[in-house]
């Protein structure tokens, strides 16, 4: 929750910084002094944005091969679907209607 809040605040601050920079520089240009430095609010917005993105990141997923193998079963690995036998007794036993 706090990550999302930080991220929202950072985005708003960034927009504000952009707009105020534009305003400031056009003000200076109008006055004939086209020098200018970056306002500090954009830097603050950057830091807050990084913090918010890190906090809002989703939970880490397993990437090791062993952890993937833990989710499999012997029946899955031994399925051999290309050679599977599809002629079963189901035809003869008839099908009981699945409920609902």
């Amino acid at each position, binding site marked *: 929750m706090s990550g999302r809040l930080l991220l929202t605040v950072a985005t708003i601050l960034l927009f504000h910084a952009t707009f105020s920079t534009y305003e400031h520089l056009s003000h200076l240009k109008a006055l004939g002094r086209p020098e200018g430095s970056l306002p500090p609010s954009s830097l603050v917005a950057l830091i807050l944005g990084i913090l918010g993105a890190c906090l809002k990141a989703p939970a880490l997923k397993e990437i090791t091969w062993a952890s993937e*193998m833990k989710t499999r079963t012997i029946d*899955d*690995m031994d399925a051999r679907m*290309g*050679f599977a*036998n599809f002629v079963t007794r189901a*035809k003869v036993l008839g*099908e009981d209607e699945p*409920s*609902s």
Partner: protein
Amino acid sequence: MAMDLPSALHRLAHYRTHNTRASRQIFEAGAVVFRNDALGKLGDDNWQFFETLALAAVDVGRPDITEECLRHLSAQFPDSPRVQCLEGILKEATESAEVALRYYQALLDADPSNVAAWKRQISVLRRLGRTESAVEELSKFADTFYTDVEAWLELADLYASRNQYTSALQSLSHVLVLAPQNPFYVLQAAETAFTAEDVPLALRFFLMVIDMTDDAETDTPTPAGITVRAWYGVELAAARLEAEPRLGSQSPSNTRSPEHLSKLRKLAQDMIQAAGKSAQGAEAEASSAWLRR
């Protein structure tokens, strides 16, 4: 069993990625998808869905649904080898085996590299009990398409069903070359080696499985899944090597047996006990009763 649409779609995706053959559940999930008119939600996967449903319908005993799916598929993909293979499977289920064999032979005469048709032909031969021709055809297939792991696994299964465990072990060695990181195949090789009386090799393979599946992070690991099965294998193999020392020196694959057999056996028993404690009820009693045998 009532199922709503999101869980049905989730199940279908899970079965597809894990290659599970859960035909009854796939059939019911398919029924849910059709009832909710949700074919559009599958997007590009809907042709895969038709294929999976067709196979599940044949398995469950509803060839009418299979015909329906095949109609859709052959309308979309005319002259596709995959669809022709599905039609062959339908023929296997509804008509006699000779008709199916003739169909596959016709497909193979037209295109000798039709992998799916060759596999189905071998499957029909095996089902008819003609194991010699099945073994011959499957050996030819495995020599032609060496990297097909499924073929070598099927060959190992075929040999094991005829109690030719050394030949099964040889086929499994090809599987291990092709898929070296898969602990399930190493476990199968371990159990086949044990049955083929090559106990030191079996013990080595069981220990390899444990090495592959154990997470090194926890200090006191409680084994789960196939690791438990591998620990059972270690216990059995170590017990057998202790009881019959001649097996340790006569390994057909010249594998040396490890030195501290009694310690290994004790470790295996501890691991099995740990796994048994974390299990519930009957399973825990069964494992402790077996350890006291």
